[in-house]
């Protein structure tokens, strides 16, 4: 009957746009394209880029930014921001270090470092969601506090001895799994798993849906019974968890911890998520975006090294790239009248 078919049509109706049109309207598509072009260019320009060793390094380095970027994306989707992730990485690393340096087993260090990070996230979340302070101010304050607590914990010294489980620690953070003859660094595996989980959660769970709702219209979310406070706290704890994971893995990779650990990471991570298409106004962002954004940043860094340009220029390139990406996105959307 006519009514039934029209109802079915209405339900099945997709936005009337071709796949290609949809694709080129996505910032992430262009960024992915840039990544691929950069990789091809590097393979042609240098002999060193495509070597397993270099790729191993690149993927491992970007995994750290990617892991935190996944958490940051979730925060940014809600319209928030977390400036304290770098300091949280330090807290996690310091906790790991101190526990293992004291000769305690790694099975204690892992949960302890994650717990310490979660605590930072919990405090952030409570101050933002329950007390109602602006995220920028809270996490800015927390960044100072957490970093300085990290410094106090280490007593400002370089620690490079990790007790009896040192080998396990190093093999987790710095090791790799050989797949088909290619060594895949462990952090990359963690990142891929986490990206899959995050992507899944954002798209398929209530929690993910609630993040987008809060970023889109927080008041509406409150009025429709979304547990806004709980979700907000959980999201700051999630990003802190990601930071904690990174702190632990990075400790294992570097084999030593200094107080400068994770300095400036928050900005790199925010840069990665913004490149990946998340808007600081909230309501948009994807897990894939965070990973691709992080990859691009690392490839820029690596390319500069291989091309013999000082890596100090990295910030310049990354910054310019963000401006380019965001500006072109804005201009593109202006054309389509959105």
């Amino acid at each position, binding site marked *: 009957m006519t009514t039934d078919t029209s109802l079915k049509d209405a339900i099945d109706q997709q936005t009337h746009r071709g796949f290609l049109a949809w694709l080129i309207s996505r910032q992430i598509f262009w960024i992915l394209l840039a990544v691929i072009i950069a990789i091809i260019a590097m393979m042609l320009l240098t002999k060193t880029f495509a070597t397993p060793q270099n790729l191993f390094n690149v993927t491992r380095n970007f995994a750290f930014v990617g892991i935190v970027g996944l958490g940051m994306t979730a925060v940014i989707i809600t319209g928030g921001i977390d400036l304290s992730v770098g300091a949280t990485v330090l807290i996690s690393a310091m906790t790991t270090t101190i526990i293992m340096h004291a000769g305690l087993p790694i099975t204690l260090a892992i949960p302890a470092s994650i717990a310490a990070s979660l605590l930072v996230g919990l405090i952030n979340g409570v101050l933002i969601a329950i007390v109602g302070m602006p995220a920028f101010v809270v996490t800015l304050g927390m960044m100072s506090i957490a970093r300085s607590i990290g410094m106090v914990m280490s007593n400002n010294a370089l620690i490079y001895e990790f007790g009896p489980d040192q080998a396990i620690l190093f093999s987790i953070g710095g090791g790799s799994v050989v797949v088909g003859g290619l060594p895949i660094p462990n952090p990359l595996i963690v990142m891929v798993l986490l990206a899959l989980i995050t992507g899944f959660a954002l798209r398929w769970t209530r929690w993910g849906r609630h993040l987008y709702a809060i970023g889109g219209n927080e008041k509406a979310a409150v009025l429709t*019974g979304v547990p806004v406070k709980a979700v907000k706290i959980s999201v700051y704890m999630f990003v802190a968890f990601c930071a904690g994971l990174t702190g632990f893995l990075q400790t294992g990779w570097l084999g030593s911890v200094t107080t400068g650990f994770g300095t400036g990471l928050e900005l790199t991570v925010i840069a990665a998520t913004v490149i990946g298409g998340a808007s600081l106004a909230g309501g948009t962002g994807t897990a894939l975006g965070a990973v691709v954004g992080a990859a691009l940043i690392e490839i820029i860094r690596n390319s500069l090294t291989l091309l013999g340009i000082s890596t100090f220029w990295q910030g310049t390139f990354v910054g310019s790239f963000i401006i380019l990406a965001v500006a072109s996105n804005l201009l593109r959307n202006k054309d389509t009248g959105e």
Partner: protein
Amino acid sequence: MAVLELANIAKHYGAITALTDISLTLNAGEVVGLVGDNGAGKTTLVKIIAGNFHPSEGSISLDGQVVQLHGPKDARSKGIEIVYQDLALADNLTAAANIFLGRELTTIARTPQEAELPFWQRKRGWRLFMPEILDYRGMYKKAGELFAELKSETRPRDLVRRMSGGQRQAVAIARTRLSNPKIVLMDEPTAAISVRQVAEVLNLIRRLKEQGIAVVLISHRIPDVFAVCDRLVVLRRGRKVADKRVADSSPEEVTGLITGALQSA
């Protein structure tokens, strides 16, 4: 039997009295217009019905049973739904996502009723072992049915950002239908939309009425109240000054009652 019965409701804030001795009954399938000037107590009364405020005196009965409403969530679980004036929609989500906001269908919560329960109260059984995943198909389907029921042209997959005022109203109203409410409170649904969209919204209200839902319509627009309501209640300075069938009243009389030119009717 009356769906909702308010008996001698009063609300004081300290020494200040916002509402005095309000009694009101609401029957199934009845549309009651609640009118009054700003500050007359409409908002307070609605917030009491919605469970935001506790009345200082008096009682609220639902289906003949005296109840205490502990907050909006409790009111909602007892069958009272509210359409807020600003509609409370998330622009970046689809119509279906907005309808199910806060009670998404998942592999575990298969029906809107189940989705409203806290997760530990949901029936699980063997489903416990499944991951809880959003049921997009189910939500689109149910949303489509709701729109069809309301005879609205809104499509479940459209982003709210791209919708007209009338369609947004349809989304907000469809949301209330999800839980088979007995009472829907609508706060100024026609305040900021065009003439044609007003007609659409009034039709939506009529659909609710047809389905036996009692509607409380708060509005400044007297013509709308007369177009759709069966009965109207006029508040002035926290008191009920009139409660009569629309057929027995006139816009002039109501305006007089609101402004105080007429004392009571």
